[in-house]
């Protein structure tokens, strides 16, 4: 997994609250090879029913080209467990998501793919989105080691992240390898469970 350390990049504002995983990648694009899904990002928001791009949608605006950060609204990526919601964004270069809150499963899936979900105060997130609308192409700087997000206004906010998740991201560590280092503990648990819950 690619490590996540710092990111200084153009950020996309997405204003809809509860933007669900079906909006990030509609179900009809699932179940196909990952490289066939890249163009499905925000598909039904980006394109009209006849397939023509909606010029006003943020990813269709040239000023936001090369964006690597999304600044979203509350309960971002709620809905299904589809990890494709993370991978389709990662494959489109988006690796950090800032929102007041996230869907739980999406939040966990980010860490499995070298992506960083950041929870910030709702008022500050709204302020960041307003700045990105006012100056399309404005950049945000994220420093994971120091747990800071610096907005286009130069103001720095500290964000909270579990040290376990932080450490895995900084090292690009793989959870399966880590877990296998606890193999003796797992075996001991299983032996105990065979005694206590023999019906399983």
């Amino acid at each position: 997994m690619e490590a996540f350390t710092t990111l200084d990049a153009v950020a996309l504002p997405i204003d809809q609250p509860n933007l669900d995983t079906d909006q990030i990648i509609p179900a009809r694009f699932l179940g196909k090879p990952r490289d066939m899904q890249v163009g499905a990002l925000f598909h039904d928001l980006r394109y009209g029913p006849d397939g023509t791009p909606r010029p006003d949608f943020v990813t269709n605006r040239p000023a936001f080209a090369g964006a690597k950060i999304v600044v979203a609204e509350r309960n971002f990526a709620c809905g299904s467990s589809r990890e494709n919601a993370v991978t389709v964004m990662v494959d489109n270069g988006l690796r950090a998501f800032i929102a007041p809150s996230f869907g739980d499963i999406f939040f966990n899936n980010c860490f499995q793919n070298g992506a960083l979900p950041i929870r910030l105060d709702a008022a500050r997130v709204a302020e960041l989105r307003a700045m990105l609308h006012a100056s399309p192409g404005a950049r945000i700087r994220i420093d994971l080691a120091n747990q800071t997000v610096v907005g286009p206004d130069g103001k720095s906010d500290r964000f909270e992240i579990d040290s376990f998740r932080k450490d895995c991201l900084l090292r690009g560590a793989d959870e399966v390898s880590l877990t296998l280092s606890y193999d003796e503990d797992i075996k001991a648990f299983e032996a105990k469970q065979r005694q206590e819950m023999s019906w399983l």
Partner: protein
Amino acid sequence: MAAARTMFEKIWQRHVVVDRDDGYTLLYIDRHLMHDGSAAGFAKLRERNMKLRRPDRGFATPDHYVRSDTREISAIADPHHRKLVEAIRTNTAESGVTLFDLGDERQGIAHVVGPEQGVTQPGLTLVCGDSHTSTHGALGALAFGIGSSEVAHVMATQCLWQRKPKAMRISVDGTLGAGVTAKDVILAIIARIGTAGAVGHVIEYAGSAIRGLSIEGRLTVCNMSIEAGGKAGMVAPDDTTIAYLEGRPFAPQAAEWDKAVAFWRTVPSDEGATFDREVSLDAASIAPMVTWGTSPEDALSIDGRIPEPSTAPDSAKKESMKRALDYMGLVPGTPLEQVPVDRVFIGSCTNSRIEDLRAAAKVAKGRKAVIPSWVVAGSGLVKKQAEAEGLDRIFVEAGFEWREPGCSMCVGMNGDTGKPQQRIASTSNRNFIGRQGPGVRTHLVSPAMAVAAAVSGRFADVRKLA
């Protein structure tokens, strides 16, 4: 005396393999349900050249990509989707995971099959690569959905790294009115707390109205915990739970049964256990519900009117209401009972069990659907039971289509979709934009309310259909 613990706390503590200083826990997973979409997990395992650690803890059934009009895999039009339904066969055969395949009467939606087979039991941890895994908490298990990387992680290690969520109790006390079902209860809960209302929490549903629900009803409530933002939802196991499990194929048998029951009796929250959050609702105040917007929290009782964005508390909410109404093609102020419906879907992991079909058939009997309406049983066994009771004949005589088990029109990935601008009364769990196909307008309702819409051609109050 030990401190009073919640049911969630007890199950969590019992499954800790490693507690790290950084607040992360390696949690043991007792049951892993798999479906056709789990092929991604098997592929990741293969990339690492690893085998399943505990195939005996895995149970699989194809549901997401199967067709509801035929059991022929070769008829699945999309070659990638066809491959996924084929892959579950080869993956389970190679790994030794139990499979309930197409053609086997035990096949169905994973969240219907798990409880039905007795795979889901009180006090266990259960995961599946599907967000509606919260369903299984209805039997007093800690059950939650995971993504495909974590699916591979469970396959490889039978464990997951977790930070302990908080505990929330939602109590519903009193008696539900006639025509008010478990679906209306959970929609009323979500309307009350919002679709992010339980983020970071495991919900325990309690109170006399919850205890009064059958297992089917509890499964419906727990199913939509995810739509309330919850990590999981659960109901304490009781006599109803134990009676439901007795004799099921994968439930403990003989002497093991008694041992298991003795353990299950210890699972409920201790008296005096404290929760991080408490919410309570009065059962008598809940009416049959219909969603009007594009989030499950946009739910109203059937006697309501489409809301006015001008009444929104802030400009952001006003904008999102306008967007939802525009997508849904609705005019503020319209009584829900005057909104015409184009199509009806009865099915999904929320509402496709025998009790749901009985409730739907009761309303359908002697009436005629005036719009295209489908009934998709949750499993082959539900379908067989319904046919034994003659429910299929009631549906067919009332003009409903009686179809084969699977996720069907809930997921929009197996060919069962609506047309743009079509308005569907659906017993599923998500009214998201495009969920049932691009441009489709989904309204979430109970099975009885779905039939009321089918026979009326508009939303109708099932309580008025004598």
